[in-house]
């Protein structure tokens, strides 16, 4: 659609601008302000310039949690995107069965995040949880509170359980938007199932997939509450992701300057990667 140029449209956007500016710009400025100071208490702050940024970038603990974060987000995308597409392909197309599937699949998304953590905390326990008990019955030694790898895998499994529905529902809506004529044409050409998927469905899913990757990346990169409830970041620091490191620093140790500098670096990383995705989305919109 051709849009009209009219700067008066700003009046319509102004409420949003003011509201978001109030809850985003003021806190952001506070963070920037903290990041260049060393704060001992009220009225006892010293300007330290970029010292915090230098020390953060060199901090081993933070580098570790950054690497853990990237590995985690990488696995999240690798598992959830294909699985989500698969589920979407299997979902009934319409009718009451379709609605029912939709709602059942959406259930994990509607659960408060701390409850998600709680559910898995119970479900994965070896003594009272079905999952932990089942794995142990199979003869595999599994204990997510003691073993590093088990804990990590449990957090990953929890995230897959929690968020694959989002990818599935996105893809489902993408699939519904493909005109029936495309499939009919494929049938006349006697295209194989795979060819239909590869040359009709997948290209048409492109825009929703970009959104799915974007949302999943952002949210997995900011994950906090669920592993916090499930494992508390342990054992050791195997499931301590960036958000948790940051929160511990800011609130637990009240290390404001460092935490603020860390926040900014964290924010910039997310922003940079998201910007790349966003450009890809607008590009895809243009091609349509």
């Amino acid at each position: 659609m051709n849009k009209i140029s009219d700067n008066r449209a700003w009046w319509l956007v102004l409420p949003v601008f003011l509201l978001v500016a109030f809850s985003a710009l003021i806190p952001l400025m506070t963070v920037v302000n903290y990041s260049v100071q060393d704060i001992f208490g009220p009225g006892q702050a010293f300007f330290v310039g970029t010292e915090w940024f230098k020390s953060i970038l060199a901090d081993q603990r933070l580098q570790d949690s950054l690497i853990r974060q990237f590995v985690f987000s990488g696995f999240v995308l690798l598992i959830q995107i294909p699985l989500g597409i698969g589920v979407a392909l299997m979902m009934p197309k319409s009718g009451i069965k379709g609605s029912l599937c939709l709602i059942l699949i959406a259930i994990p998304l509607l659960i408060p995040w701390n409850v998600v953590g709680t559910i898995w905390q119970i479900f994965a326990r070896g003594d009272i949880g079905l999952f932990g008990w089942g794995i142990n019955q199979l003869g595999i030694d599994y204990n997510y509170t003691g073993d590093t790898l088990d804990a990590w895998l449990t957090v990953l499994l929890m995230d897959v359980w929690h968020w694959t529905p989002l990818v599935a529902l996105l893809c489902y809506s993408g699939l519904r938007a493909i005109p029936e004529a495309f499939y009919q044409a494929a049938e006349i050409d006697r295209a194989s199932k795979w060819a239909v998927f590869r040359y009709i469905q997948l290209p048409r899913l492109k825009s929703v997939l970009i959104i799915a990757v974007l949302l999943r990346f952002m949210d997995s990169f900011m994950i906090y509450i669920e592993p916090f409830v499930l494992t508390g970041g342990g054992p050791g620091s195997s499931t301590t992701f960036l958000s948790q490191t940051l929160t511990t620093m800011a609130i637990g140790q009240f290390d404001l300057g460092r935490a603020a500098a860390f926040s900014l670096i964290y924010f910039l990383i997310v922003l940079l990667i998201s910007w790349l995705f966003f450009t890809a989305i607008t590009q895809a919109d243009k091609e349509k």
Partner: protein
Amino acid sequence: MRQTRSKNIGIIIYILLLLTPVYWLLNMSFKTNREILGGLTFWPKNFTLDNYVVIFTDPSWYNGYLNSMAYVSINVVITLLVALPAAYAFSRYKFAGDKHLFFWLLSNRMAPPAVFLLPFFQLYSSIGLFDTYIAVALAHCLFNVPLAVWILEGFMKGVPREYDEMAYIDGYSFPKFFIKVFLPMIRSGIGVTAFFAFMFSWVELLLARTLTSVDAQPIGAIMTRTIGASGIDWGLLAAAGVLTIIPGVLVIWFVRNHVAKGFALGRV
């Protein structure tokens, strides 16, 4: 035919796996703590509603739900009120800085809440809003408003501009056109947006917990009380968890026919 059957079986297996953890929570909420810790049972042997009775009779418990409901409702109303005109502007007009503004809005959806915890706390404390519904509702606008603008803009793009022009020719003023003609046309989009705003505000806890202490404490924060000196009260925790799932399921039922499009942010 065989293909649809294998598809059906696949989806049924997926949904069963998906629901198992939820079933386990439900199962546990009907048990006594003695039974939970006594050994693994696949369904409650001594079926009890005690855990639910505790929640529904103790004000410090059920107030948690009411608090969460209150700030979520306020948030949905604010989000829709400001996002509707903005989304209209983005879908219909080009204006100075529109692309940058749009990305800036979205970038707030991408900001890790942990980054804003402390400044938020200080900001709302300094203006005297700490521990009120409105503080949490405003804080949640940070990620809900950008999302709402994004979804609504997608839905609004689907309405041809000829409708707008026709309404002007018929002598409608802009506010009248917007409320009487335009909003009814995108009501499914509004419903879906309200659902998303509800959902994200309902599931968020980090900010809600930081900005409240007693009067406006969300249910998620109250749940941590089940962890006492004598260990965790598993039955009560499970019952509280089950009750947090119900509002979402009720709300999604109303928008079930449009929610798929909403999940794609109106982009298909």
